[in-house]
């Protein structure tokens, strides 16, 4: 079979390999003080939800030299997510970022098993002492998009391809239409729900159906804006993006702007807090005035006056001089939802199950 010489060489090779792996495996072991694990439900190149989180993690890594990042993509929600988080903790991770809404329950379970590890969950609504939930309230930003869209449209028909009729998404579309109407009283927004967070085939069909109806500004609320934005660009329509700042490259001519998350500074703060022991569980709900929600650069088709108006309105929101859902507001069935002089509070968005007048669509 194998002669002695070969066997000896084989053993030598294995020993050498073991030594090499042992020394090379962790060259920065002396400097790494914080291993951070991040899980993504999709691909980090999706120009959407996942890429926004991934780039946030990269910014955190750049800003905090003691951070070593463990990153896993395409982790299904459920038992797999638990397994991946446990795996990261076994590798020494002390801060976990489960970057998908559906990771909340698995994260809560793992958090309770490992009370010394900190968890930060985007969009969650339940906490434990070592799990923080964070998000940025987006309707104000969508209102600004509505202003830009309302000024850019030539047909006065706007459209939105949305995953599901969840209250937060309805609120975004409502804010968009309110913003559009504020500069263009004839603007109407048609909504199509695809029924799922990611199905490029259906998204393309939805985009085309809206374009056939005469829509010339397409917005999108799904995990990745690529399909819808491309479909719009192909037919000469304008696009409004979501999640990620860099979507313009898919629609160089038709790009309007987009609502984008820039988690980098927030993640940097989390990492520094864990390192100096000041981290505590909290519910963070930011907005337009915070450094993790922004609007993407404007495209060439947006008129200069729209840009000025957007910036001015943004200041009004940030300064508290204006509320997105200030009354009077009627829904698209004629029912008065917000009285004159009042405003629908952003903290109550969970209760919004209607679409404003001017939006053509069925919320439930």
């Amino acid at each position, binding site marked *: 079979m194998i002669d002695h010489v070969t066997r000896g060489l084989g053993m030598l090779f294995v020993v050498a390999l073991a030594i090499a792996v042992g020394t090379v495996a962790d060259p920065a072991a002396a400097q790494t003080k914080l291993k951070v694990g991040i899980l993504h439900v*999709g691909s980090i190149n999706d120009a959407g939800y996942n890429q926004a989180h991934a780039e946030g993690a990269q910014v955190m890594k750049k800003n905090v030299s003691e951070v070593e990042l463990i990153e896993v993509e395409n982790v299904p929600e459920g038992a797999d997510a638990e397994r991946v988080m446990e795996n990261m903790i076994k590798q020494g991770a002390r801060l976990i970022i489960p970057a998908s809404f559906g990771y909340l329950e698995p994260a809560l379970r793992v958090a309770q098993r490992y009370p010394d590890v900190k968890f930060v969950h985007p969009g969650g609504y339940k906490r434990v002492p070592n799990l923080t939930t964070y998000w940025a309230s987006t309707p104000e930003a969508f209102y600004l998009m509505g202003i830009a869209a309302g000024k850019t449209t030539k047909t006065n028909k706007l459209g939105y391809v949305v995953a599901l009729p969840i209250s937060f998404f309805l609120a975004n579309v409502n804010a968009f239409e309110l913003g559009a109407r504020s500069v263009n009283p004839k603007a109407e927004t048609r909504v199509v729900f695809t029924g799922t967070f990611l199905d490029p085939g259906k998204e393309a069909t939805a985009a085309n*159906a809206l374009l056939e109806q005469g829509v010339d500004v397409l917005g999108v609320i799904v995990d990745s804006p690529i399909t819808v934005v491309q479909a719009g660009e192909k037919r000469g329509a304008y696009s409004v993006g979501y999640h990620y700042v860099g979507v313009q490259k898919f629609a160089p001519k038709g790009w309007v702007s987009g609502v984008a998350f820039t988690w980098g500074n927030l993640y940097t703060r989390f990492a520094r807090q864990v390192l100096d022991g000041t981290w505590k569980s909290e519910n963070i709900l930011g907005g337009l005035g915070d450094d993790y929600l922004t609007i993407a650069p404007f495209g060439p088709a947006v008129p200069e006056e729209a840009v000025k108006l957007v910036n001015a309105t943004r200041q009004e929101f940030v300064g508290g001089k204006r509320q997105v859902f200030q009354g009077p507001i009627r829904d698209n069935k004629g029912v008065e939802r917000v009285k004159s002089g009042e405003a629908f509070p952003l903290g109550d968005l969970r209760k919004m199950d209607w679409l404003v007048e001017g939006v053509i669509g069925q919320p439930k």
Partner: protein
Amino acid sequence: MIALKSLLSGAILSGTPLLYATLAELIAERAGIVNLGLEGVMLVGAVTAFVAMVVTGSAALGVVAGALAGAAFNAIFAFLVITRRANQLAAGLALLFCGVGLSALVGSRYVGSRIAGLPEVPIPLLSTLPGVGPAMFHHDALVYAVVPLAIATWWGLFRTRWGLALRAVGENQTAAFAAGRNPHALQYQALVVAGLLGGIAGADLSLGLAKTWAEWMTSGRGFIAVALVIFSRWHPLRAIAGALLFGGAISLEIELQAMGVPISPFLLDMLPYVLSLVVLAAWGGARRHAAPASLGRVFQRTG
């Protein structure tokens, strides 16, 4: 009016990948093999086509690469169920998840890449017909090719000796063997052809319909195709109707929303599936006797 044009166009666009996939499964099942992993084959085809186009810039190469990848992937399935005699249903499902994972792995580096996709080619004269013209005759090459391919499949299965032998294997493998056919060889051939068509179905999704790649972007279309095979009673020409009907239902669901019809989006989401149930219930009777008699079994030589 607008809605009908859009509906027709949408039905054709959504129905095309379904028809390719249905033809793929139909050929396999006519030879007696159930491939539940068709979705995995489509995904492998879709990602390969996408990556090939990102790298080379050629849609034609993308489609060819997708087809070949699908065929190679299905050949693995063929080896498992024919030569190694693995349970077809289990092996098919294993193929499905393997395909999902493999395609996600290969595609992850390329997510977010821009491609021009398959170019739309208007057919001269026909595409200028009022109303129907642009809806039916302004599409890409894969859309134009699918119905001729379905007819070719019908002709191949029912008008050639190879098709006859293949169907014989699907009905009664022992008899086919006794008549001098080689059941295993025919089943391998059927699965390779099925793999090519499944790969093209995937390529049509990633290069034609969506012009992008996302993990598990087939979203159950492979399973719909398996159902459509039964729905069409294993006949390629009826498969055209089935795929168009289902594609039309998907398109209708979206069209109704875009028009602002006041029906709950949740109910509309069910539309394609409810429609399939209705049609199956109405025309279900003959189905049991229409399946290839040896479906699910693989020939074993005794002695």
